[in-house]
């Protein structure tokens, strides 16, 4: 039984590197939406909150029943406290990790160490920038037996990672893709976490 899934998802910014050149922001949004619709209540989703993603996940939780928000574990570094989405307050399972003062990179590393503690069965990567590649390296080091699933079609760093791993299928039927790859049946009850 796959119980915890790490989600690494963000939208590449035009002012940081060239990951935005392959990124389709709408496909990133849609893929995250399909993943959450499939998994909520069936597996615990762990992710480092992103301001563009968190409000959507909150809305989906609320439409599937607010109690499902307990099935999500959100990690945030206090380094980014100025842009925390208000939805953070709505989740019952938020871990805010202290920043390393004035050091963005060290603050992220500290948050990721805590975020990846415990057992994981899979990690899903959607869109993103250099952080996706960093999280992939750390995640696979800490959880060598976990399934790693970079999604090609939405582009960004996850697409680069998918190419590196030889996973270049650009399918956009994300619900079926996640169901098949993560082994989650849509008949499963939503009371498993």
């Amino acid at each position: 039984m796959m119980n915890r899934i790490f989600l690494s998802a963000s939208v590449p910014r035009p002012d940081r590197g060239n990951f935005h050149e392959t990124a389709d922001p709408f496909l990133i949004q849609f893929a995250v939406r399909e993943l959450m619709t499939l998994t909520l209540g069936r597996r615990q989703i762990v992710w480092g909150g992103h301001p563009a993603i968190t409000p959507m996940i909150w809305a989906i939780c609320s439409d599937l029943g607010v109690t499902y928000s307990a099935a999500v574990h959100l990690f945030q570094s206090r380094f980014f406290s100025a842009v925390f989405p208000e939805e953070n307050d709505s989740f019952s399972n938020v871990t805010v990790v202290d920043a390393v003062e004035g050091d963005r990179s060290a603050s992220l590393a500290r948050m990721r160490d805590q975020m990846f503690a415990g057992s994981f069965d899979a990690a899903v990567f959607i869109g993103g920038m250099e952080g996706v590649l960093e999280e992939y390296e750390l995640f696979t080091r800490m959880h060598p037996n976990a399934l790693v699933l970079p999604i090609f079609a939405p582009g960004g760093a996850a697409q680069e990672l998918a190419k590196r791993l030889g996973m270049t299928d650009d399918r956009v039927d994300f619900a079926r893709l996640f169901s098949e790859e993560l082994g989650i049946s849509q008949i499963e009850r939503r009371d498993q976490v």
Partner: protein
Amino acid sequence: MLESPEYFASRWTEAEYGRALAKGIGVLRVQWPDTTPSPVTSTASRAELLVEEFRADGQLSDVAIQRICRQLEAVRSQSHALRTMSLMDAVRIAIEQIEGQVNGVGPGRLMQVTLRNGRQLSVQPTLGVPTAMTLQETILRAGHDDCAVVYNHYGIMASWQAHLEWLANRVGGSRWVRQSDAAWDFAGWDAQ
């Protein structure tokens, strides 16, 4: 959405925005001149307004409107295509998982389905907020009462969903199926 400087200061506009994302609706963010886009909108497509695109009377120039309309249509059509595909695939996955069969798709994307127990159903995936008209058209198109309308319930008021259930009970034979629970609902139908 018109991202004015105070757009996300309102909890209602913020909630509305999150709901649109949850429903898989593509968003075109039209950015007011000289404003900084909110990081919340990074999944949206962007159209930036320039000061010189406003006429003396405060109206947008025709060129700017045409540019925004072209972008809007690109966003709308991509969103519509993906949402439709997602709905239809949800039906296919649900039917496969209960060992039924999708026999084909007809006019208006009406899907002909056979459940494991041999029961024949007509399944109508529908975008947006379904109404009594949706049910009527589905039954007329199918030519029989064993119909299901599959829809995405995100953002639809609970009272409206209750109304839909009331209506289906009154009509008999037909029912509404939420996309997120399609396999579960069809399994229940199969067991009858």
